[in-house]
């Protein structure tokens, strides 16, 4: 039983790490612009797809990953510049609809480029399982967990230590005041979208070897990442990370200990319950500082 529990936790943390990275992307853009970017899941898909294509074309591994992140960042920047920015000042609902439209468009383009098939990516460092007691995990699980931890810490340091991070925070709490500090708010919005896109792309790269990617892979991940961000308190990046991990572990434990048929329902009920008891999420605004 205890062995099984360990296995459930490993699975939960791996899956939760992906949710966390997607949730973090949601939180950063929401923070910077009050927009829920529903194309966040598509960033994950694009990152993985581009890398797979490049690898297929013979690009060296690290270069392919790097280019995939850069391509996704470019998509994020274009999304901001061509879809979100022109609608600045429109009601939030309009902006949300724009991002939903963008996600559908991105999926459509992905469908044209990569077809309906699932695509596999090679593991970063082999797929020989590692044993931890009687639990097993793949080297890729470690990549996912480690990569997520490193990124989350980096994002945290970015907001805490760098002036660009502070400036982004400033934009998120008061756009006008930020402008009065001489902060180029336009550039900061691009930074937020670029950063979120990069996070999404990396999430995609980390999990692609485990999961397979298709043009619509982003839908589910986007939804889970959104739940994670809500669970953690929408404006709180570290809350989104905690929410993602919690959601992943919750799903895995529900499946393992109660019933796999109800795991999503159980996780969903818990999210609703948390929001009922704490409408601003576990680490919602007002509770603590943001980052």
């Amino acid at each position, binding site marked *: 039983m205890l062995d*099984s529990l360990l296995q459930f936790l490993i699975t*939960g943390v791996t899956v939760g790490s992906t949710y966390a990275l997607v949730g973090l992307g949601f939180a950063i853009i929401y923070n910077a612009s009050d927009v829920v970017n529903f194309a966040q899941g598509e960033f994950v898909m694009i990152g993985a797809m581009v890398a797979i294509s490049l690898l297929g074309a013979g690009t060296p591994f690290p270069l392919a990953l790097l280019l995939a992140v850069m391509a996704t960042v470019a998509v994020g920047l274009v999304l901001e510049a061509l879809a979100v920015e022109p609608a600045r000042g429109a009601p939030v609902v309009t902006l949300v609809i724009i991002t939903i439209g963008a996600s559908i468009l991105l999926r459509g383009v992905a469908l044209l480029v990569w077809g309906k098939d699932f695509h596999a990516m090679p593991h970063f460092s082999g797929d020989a399982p590692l044993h931890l007691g009687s639990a097993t995990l793949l080297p890729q699980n470690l990549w996912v967990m480690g990569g997520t931890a490193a990124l989350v810490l980096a994002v945290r340091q970015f907001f805490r230590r760098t002036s660009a991070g502070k400036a982004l925070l400033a934009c998120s709490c008061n756009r006008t005041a930020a402008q009065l500090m001489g902060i180029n708010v336009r550039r900061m919005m691009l930074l937020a979208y670029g950063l979120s896109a990069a996070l999404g792309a990396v999430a995609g790269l980390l999990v692609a070897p485990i999961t397979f990617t298709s043009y619509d892979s982003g839908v589910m991940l986007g939804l889970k990442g959104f739940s994670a961000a809500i669970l953690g308190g929408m404006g709180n990046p570290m809350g989104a990370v905690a929410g993602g991990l919690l959601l992943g572990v919750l799903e895995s434990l529900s499946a393992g200990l109660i019933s796999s048929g109800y795991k999503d329902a159980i996780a969903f009920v818990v999210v609703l319950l948390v929001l009922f008891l704490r409408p601003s999420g576990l680490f919602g605004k007002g509770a603590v500082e943001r980052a």
Partner: protein
Amino acid sequence: MHMRKRFFGLILGAGVLAAGSSFAADPIRIGTFLTVTGPASFLGDPELRTLQMYVEELNARGGVLGRKLELVHYDTVGQAKEAVTFVKRLIQNDKVDVIVGGSSTGDTMAAIPEVEKAGIPLISLAGGVEIVEPVKKWVFKTPHTDRMAAIRIFEDMKKRGIRKFALISGDGGYDKSGRKQVLELAPSHGLEVVADESYGNKDTDMTTQLTKIRATDAQAILNFGFGAAPAIVTRNVRQLGITLPVYQSHGVGSKKFIEMAGEAAEGVRLPAAALVVAEQLADSDPQKKVLLDYKAKFQAKHGEVSTFGGHAYDGFFIAVEAIQRAGGTDPARVRDEIEKTRGFVGTAGVFHMSPQDHMGLSVDAFKMVEVRKGNWVIID
């Protein structure tokens, strides 16, 4: 086989009479409603392409009975409500003579009351047993059923001395229907289902469910699933160090599965449609030529074939040959002729329909295959 020759002979004759593209009489209208776009487009897309391809081909050869074929198509996007509307329109406005379609069981079931009321023959391309059981006067279908797949798997398990197995399935319609058949039929085959796990079709990791299965005394694992999930299950099984035999359903019968699951796919068994292993069939197998022809034609135009397109091939030619035999498009006579289809060699198998059986395939239409060295090998 012989029927096929006669059929092409007739077409040729008709072509000469019709002299090129000038058709004498009214066209023969074939209606169809498929999920060409949307989440289940993997069904409707190859089905529609197949229908279009053969309508074009037959028309180029002079049509059928000297009449041009006309395909009337609606895209249901997988919405059963739309299916009803479209079938009504096919019958009332487009005045089709026969309907080949319904990509999914849901779409087909929704359409059945309309065709039964209007008295227009319908040949469904969907898998569900309930389409033809109980038998409905005007309704037929061409694909194998998940029940046949389950039975084929059970037979193989018994041969290997397996008595207890674990079931893991997804949350899609295909998965759920398969799961139901497995749970219903296993006891009567002397098999015990010791675990019944499920996962979301978009889930990315099934190790939790498989860890639970590992703790049971199952002697094999059966996964009823579709898309990427079965490949993930297969990889997770090996990752957890589970050495039990793994069975998949006919839903993964494509090269893509092997490609995705990689080495973990080695030894996986499943009941596959003959199309998947066409090249490996014995030359004496009547299906071989039909399959290779269809494959070559489809791939020349559209890329990789799927069994779904094959179902459309079967439905289309069963309809055309019935019209041929009926000597016209009187719905009642066409229906009777469809029911009299005997020995039609299609992609799914050799069809023998009867008043009691509106599908006409037997369990051995499925070939039991195993993955060996990255390829499907027929073992039974």
